[in-house]
């Protein structure tokens, strides 16, 4: 059975968002003397870049929360019990793989 998966890499909106934000975190769209405009001692262009970077972080949060879902946690629960030292699953899958 093929599991229902949602991966960021397959979502057009994720790509569009990342491309737009990547363009915005490169400071190509300022005048070369933009450094003369200061806000509290910080150049305005730098604040805009930081703002765009924060938007990227927020977009990453949104992407992780809503666009990323696989069946791993359903299939395997939330991690093996620590310390049991077993590695059976690994060998089992590998054997299946060989077969």
């Amino acid at each position, binding site marked *: 059975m093929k599991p229902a998966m949602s991966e960021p890499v397959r979502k057009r909106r994720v790509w569009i968002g990342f491309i737009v934000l990547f363009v915005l975190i490169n400071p190509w769209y300022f005048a070369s003397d933009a*450094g003369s405009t200061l806000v509290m001692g910080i150049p305005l262009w730098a604040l805009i870049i930081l703002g765009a970077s924060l938007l*990227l*972080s927020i977009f990453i949060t949104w992407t992780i929360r809503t666009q990323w879902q*696989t069946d791993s946690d359903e299939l395997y629960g939330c991690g*093996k019990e620590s310390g049991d030292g077993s590695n059976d699953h690994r060998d089992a899958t590998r054997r299946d793989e060989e077969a």
Partner: protein
Amino acid sequence: MEVELAFSGWSGIFVLALYGALMLGVGVFAFLRNRGMRESLDEYYLGGRGLGVMVLFFTFFATQYSGNTVIGYPPTAYRMGYQYLVSVPFFIMIIMVYLFFAPRLYALGRRFSLLTPVDWIELRFRSKSVSILAAILMLYGLANYLLEQFVAIGQGVSGLTGGTIPYQVGVIFFIVIMVAYSWLGGMRSVAYTDTIQGIALLFGVFTLLIGSLYYFGGLPSAAANMQLNAPEKLNPPDGAGLTRWFSLLVLVGIGAAIYPHAVQRIFSAKSEATLKRSFIRMAYMPFLTAGVVFMVGIIGIAAFPGLSTAESEQLVGMMANALANQNAFFYWAMVLLFGGIIAAIVSTADSVLLTFSSIISNDLYGRYIKPDASEYQKVLAGKLVGLVAVAILIVIAWYPPATLYQIFVLKFEVLIQVGPALILGLYWTRLNARAVFAGMLAGAVMAGVFTLMGYRPLGIYSGLWGLLLNTTICVAGTLLTGINRADREHARKVIGFEY
């Protein structure tokens, strides 16, 4: 880049001894709690795939932010001004790049119990030559990375103690402790100590920022100084500066995300939910870490104007010295800061060493040299070869070869050449092993040669040129030669989750 901190001789030794004891304690704790651990590769190298959000977050944190972030970034900001603001978004880029492969790689890691990045490459391509080449590139890059950390530990220790502890003693002391706690508790020790080390570092950089703002004046006075003396430091980059900005975003974003020890951490997450929450936290850390040290560098422009390049390398030490002279609180805070910096270097080194050993254990010894060895033997082989590598690297750190020193500098450039196999292989069933092998080899050679010759066409870093050639060969080679049906069927099964 030695930072002399003459004010703290014995207090420095005290803090370092305390850190050492604490880390060893963590190792013993992890050992006692998980006695069955040494039996299995999963337990030793991935902490039994059971790392929770907090610990996983800090272990990602430790792989991305090292002592160099604190010592090396402020001087760069000092020299370049706001043009070095790129250090904030490039750390966010790392998380963005993760999102293009981590979801699937985690799911596959769970299904096939993958242990190392090479494990995945072997599963996907079933090619001895591709796996061995990838393993060699990774081991080479990781070893150089480790060497850099060792040199930094020695310089940091002798700087912190004002030379009371010589460079060599500092290196040996921390390496012995690092190897001891890693051997005792494997990934768990490494992750727990990463947590302690991360907290120490965060505390230190924030105190440094607050102290600098308070005693040296804030950003407005720095801006006034730049307007007067070097207005270009306030302006956005143009031309070559813009290319540099762009290529740093791409190189660091891709490079740091596919560092083998970074990829391996994906496998050690307790669950997908845990991994996601750790990534979300990581997405905001650049503001609190790179952003803070960037501000420290900018403040330095007004506090210590007119330093030469070599002098500016000592900036953090100078600021810490000046702050420590203010009062007892800042004195101890600065001692802790330097302890935290060394701890951060150690925590980056331990992660690298663990991944190095895991590739030996699993991908070379366990797969090709002695496949029927018990897990215990495989872990032991990884530990011992890791120890030998450490010994060799210490010798190199003490007696740097006069010529060809640059072959010990190649890291990023070589490591990212594994990227196309790792990432393209996740999505493209046609991608074939021969094209991947040719691309990886050509990319690594090109990146190496460009770096050795100091050749940087169009201002773009040699690693990216190698990556471009590598990816082109992978894609063109695959399209031209095609793939046999069995291989494609296998790829489809693996990445289509139809096993």
